[in-house]
């Protein structure tokens, strides 16, 4: 922990004014005092450092830090839950197709199940996949 303390001092910095701008852009904040934006600035620097380091460890000390290493950490650690939307895991086209195929399979199953009680409130995904099916069979 003491090396973290050392890292806070005398290193590259983020501009406090920019941090201040970002904080104030939040709708539920009126004003922020100077100490809190300075603190937030330091916290953000630490955040970048720690996330980069964790990703690097996760990368088995490869020569290059890549997006996928970051995404991996973000998706494995609960405290980074808030980043999952902006850092989705990259997948290959083959994987994407597999997922979509499985999804469509599930949807088709569901349709068979409630065909009799086909509710009009079903989302558009269903209907569009349904139309695709019919065009394919036609």
């Amino acid at each position, binding site marked *: *922990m003491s090396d*973290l*303390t050392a*890292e*806070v*001092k005398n*290193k*590259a*910095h*983020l*501009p406090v004014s*920019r*941090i201040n*701008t*970002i*904080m*104030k*852009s*939040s709708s*539920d*904040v*009126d*004003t*922020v*005092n100077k*100490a*809190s934006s*300075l*603190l*937030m600035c*330091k*916290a*953000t*620097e*630490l*955040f*970048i*450092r*720690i*996330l*980069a*380091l964790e*990703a*690097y460890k996760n990368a088995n000390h*490869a*020569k*290059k*830090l*890549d*997006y996928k*290493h*970051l*995404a991996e950490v*973000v998706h494995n650690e*609960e*405290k980074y839950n*808030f*980043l999952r939307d*902006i*850092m989705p895991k990259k997948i290959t086209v083959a994987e994407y197709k597999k997922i979509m195929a499985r999804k469509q399979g599930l949807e088709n199953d569901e349709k068979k199940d409630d065909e009799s009680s086909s509710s009009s409130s079903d989302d558009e995904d269903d209907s569009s996949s349904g139309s695709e099916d019919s065009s394919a069979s036609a």
Partner: protein
Amino acid sequence: MAEKLEDLNLPNSSVQKIIKEALPDSVNIGKDARSALSRAASVFVLYVTSQASNEAQKGNRKTLIAKDVMTALEELEFDNFIEPLEEALKEFKDSKVKRSRAKKPNGESVATEDVEDQHETADADLKDDD
């Protein structure tokens, strides 16, 4: 204020420097990794700010103070940030006290009040830690 959307991004060069310092010298940083980290940092600020503003609301305050940020970090599972940040905060306060003493020997009332207020919150922080 935030007039352009870019105003909510952090400067790439600073982010790059910070990452470089954190990692061993030999490591390269992918461009997408850097921009992702930069975006993540912006979101982090908003995430913590929103939690901190809840704290301020609980205390019936309209202004975010340092203690709100500390409590927010603790609640969001970034407790390991607290210790190094306490140091930074202390340094900031010390320099502020010095400055207000040096600059305003007479019209001190507002400045010292402010400082005292913050010292109180720092004391409260310390008590929380015990």
